[in-house]
């Protein structure tokens, strides 16, 4: 039914700058690069819906596991074999945009009258670099608190809710902590998106302003200290335990009572009926203020695709309501198209998934620059020694070191 206005649109702009989409003498096959296997079924459904409108464009999913997604993408862009359309995230957008590896979308979107107004504005902004739109938001995420109801009941403590503060977390953890069975109160793992950034923002700290690192700011250090203190007081597993068994697995195994999770962390938790029954989801407890980090993926187009028009049609389609609805219904991810989140909430009625949406107003954007990957690796290397528990390097010292290393990297970016 959308074919007619679309065809008119194509006819209208075929005389203007840039070639409009003309089926390339028959079928065109484009590749769609992504990393999350959980989302493959929903994406297949999106592709089917897209194919109903564009029978001449075949879309093949190219799934690369997260661990090698970026290395492979970067190499294949150089080598010329990368997917035509692929997932982009905050840490990488600035670098990919600066080196002109992505197809600019501003003119095409304007031509089609697409304003992306239905997507969270700071996400749209995130994928706009130097006035040029490179990506179209696909989904978004904030962080929420997953808790184990059984462990709370056993300790005789009420479930976490929006009234909770850091002190509540520490007090509850002291009650729940059981060295004999190896049960901890909460996970304070060295995980930037789930733990570091929310704690920093909740303490009014900051990570990056222009080309300055915020890791030497007292407020930032205070946020980090909340995490390292909990480890030093033996209320949370140290980084060695977290490295051996990831927080989500510890939580599913009933070894930690609370952990900070992304919306898609709920997928594995929901799958196991036993774990599902004992899991609750709440907004993050507050520190000096409420806070969390917000991030979202976007669909971008490879600048070197032989089929820019077909790729654009696909990305444009995915910016629309239908894609949001399919993603929401699958329950795997929180779609960014406004008004399509309801289906996501209904997919897991036992969990209070609304918590993720409730926190959007208090969320801070995921910090990123051109060399994000480099200074993110530094965080791990430099902060790690403060995450070992009693006797490890004081967090003040590690944070100062990190700030100076990070400033060096950021200074080189400007050149």
């Amino acid at each position, binding site marked *: 039914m959308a074919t007619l206005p679309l065809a008119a649109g194509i006819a209208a702009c075929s005389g203007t700058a840039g070639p409009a989409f003309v089926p390339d003498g028959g079928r065109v096959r484009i590749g769609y690069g992504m990393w999350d296997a959980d989302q493959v079924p929903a994406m297949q459904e999106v592709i089917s819906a897209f194919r109903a409108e564009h029978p001449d464009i075949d879309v093949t999913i190219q799934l690369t596991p997260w661990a090698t997604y970026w290395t492979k993408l970067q190499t294949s862009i150089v080598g010329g074999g990368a997917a035509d359309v692929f997932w982009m995230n905050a840490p990488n957008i600035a670098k990919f945009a600066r080196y002109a*590896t992505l197809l600019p979308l501003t003119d095409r979107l304007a031509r089609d009258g697409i304003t992306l107004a239905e997507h969270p504005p700071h996400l749209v902004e995130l994928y706009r670099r130097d006035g040029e739109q490179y990506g179209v938001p696909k989904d978004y995420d904030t962080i929420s608190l997953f808790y184990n109801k059984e462990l709370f009941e056993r300790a005789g403590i009420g479930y976490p809710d929006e009234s909770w503060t850091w002190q509540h977390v520490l007090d509850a953890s002291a009650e729940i902590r059981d060295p004999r069975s190896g049960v901890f109160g909460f996970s304070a793992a060295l995980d930037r998106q789930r733990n570091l950034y929310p704690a920093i923002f909740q303490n009014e700290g900051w990570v990056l302003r222009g080309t300055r690192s915020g890791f030497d700011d007292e407020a930032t250090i205070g946020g980090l200290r909340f995490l390292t203190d909990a480890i030093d007081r033996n209320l949370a597993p140290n*980084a*060695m335990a977290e*490295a*051996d068994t990831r927080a989500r697995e510890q939580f599913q195994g009933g070894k930690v009572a609370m952990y900070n999770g992304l919306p898609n962390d709920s997928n594995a938790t929901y799958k196991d009926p036993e774990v599902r029954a004992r899991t609750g989801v709440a907004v993050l407890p507050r520190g000096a203020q409420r806070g969390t980090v917000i991030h979202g993926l976007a669909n971008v187009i490879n600048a070197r695709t032989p089929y820019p028009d077909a790729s654009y049609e696909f990305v444009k389609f995915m910016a629309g309501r239908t894609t949001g609805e399919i993603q929401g219904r699958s329950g795997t991810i929180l779609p960014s198209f406004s008004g399509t989140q309801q289906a996501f909430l209904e997919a897991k009625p036992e969990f209070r998934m609304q918590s993720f949406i409730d926190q959007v107003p208090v969320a801070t954007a995921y910090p990123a620059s051109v060399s994000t990957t480099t200074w993110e*690796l530094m965080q*791990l290397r430099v902060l*790690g*020694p403060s995450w*070992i528990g009693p006797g490890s390097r004081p967090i003040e010292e590690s944070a100062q070191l990190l700030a100076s290393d990070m400033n060096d990297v950021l200074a080189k970016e400007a050149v």
Partner: protein
Amino acid sequence: MSQLATAPAVRAERAAPARPYRRRQRSAYLFIAPVGLGLGIFYLYPAVSTFVLSFAEWGPFGGHTFTGFTNYLTVFQLDAFWTALGNTLLYMLIGLLTLPAAILFAVLLNRDGLRGVTVYRTLYFIPFVTLPVASGMVWKWLYNGDFGLINQFLGIFGLPGTYWVSNPATALFAIGIVQVWSQVGYYLVIFIAGLKAIPKEYAEAAEIDGASAFQRFWHITLPLLSPSIFFCAVINIILTLQIFDLVYVMSASATVNPAFGASQSIVSLFYEKAFVEADKGTATALAFLLMLLIAGLTYVQFRLQRRWVNYV
């Protein structure tokens, strides 16, 4: 006249064997060609271009400008490089344990009248043919601090365990030991072949002269095995200096491992620079420095061999 008559004859005599020789040579080159092409395309060309490009700065998506020794200076100023260099040399030293272990097992397996030798040999060889990634994963489970079998085993004797591959103090050794475990079977096979080549008469003669089993091993077997030991030492050092997959699987692949820096090898630093940070200039300089290190150590070994290797 006679000179004229004989001269062509002589020439013909000389030319006759020359033609098949040249033809033989040509066919020899044909036989070498497949391997030579492979080596040229996949080893020589990349090695030379790595060297050339180590003097250039690369963009994250290709394109380079020559910058002289900048990359090498960057590498030398990198703390992570010196740590990785130290780690790599430690991996090498731990890796050398493979040789005495392999000799010991080879001698044990080479005893007369031992039954089921083939089974043992196969068992020892299996780790070597197993994918390093697969054995790395399994070992990572064994080493797991909370659920691992090693800690459970230690627990039986009341011994404290640790997070073997995540503890900065133990990670390198834990990984190094797996490297030894996975390589021992390969050298074992070489040593068994070496032992079989030693004539039994020497040991029998020594036995008659009253030499103990240890003396026979020390003064006869070991010196006669030295060519095999030399070969294995050279190969072993080259391989362990390039250790990567076990480090990657057991330590660096965990997104949050506090032992990440303490167990990183030069090749895994190279991987991080080249493919994670997309800083290929620094990475090529690293790769070339590693090549120099390997070439240097191999040269030293060849120089030293005449002092201890006995070629009968």
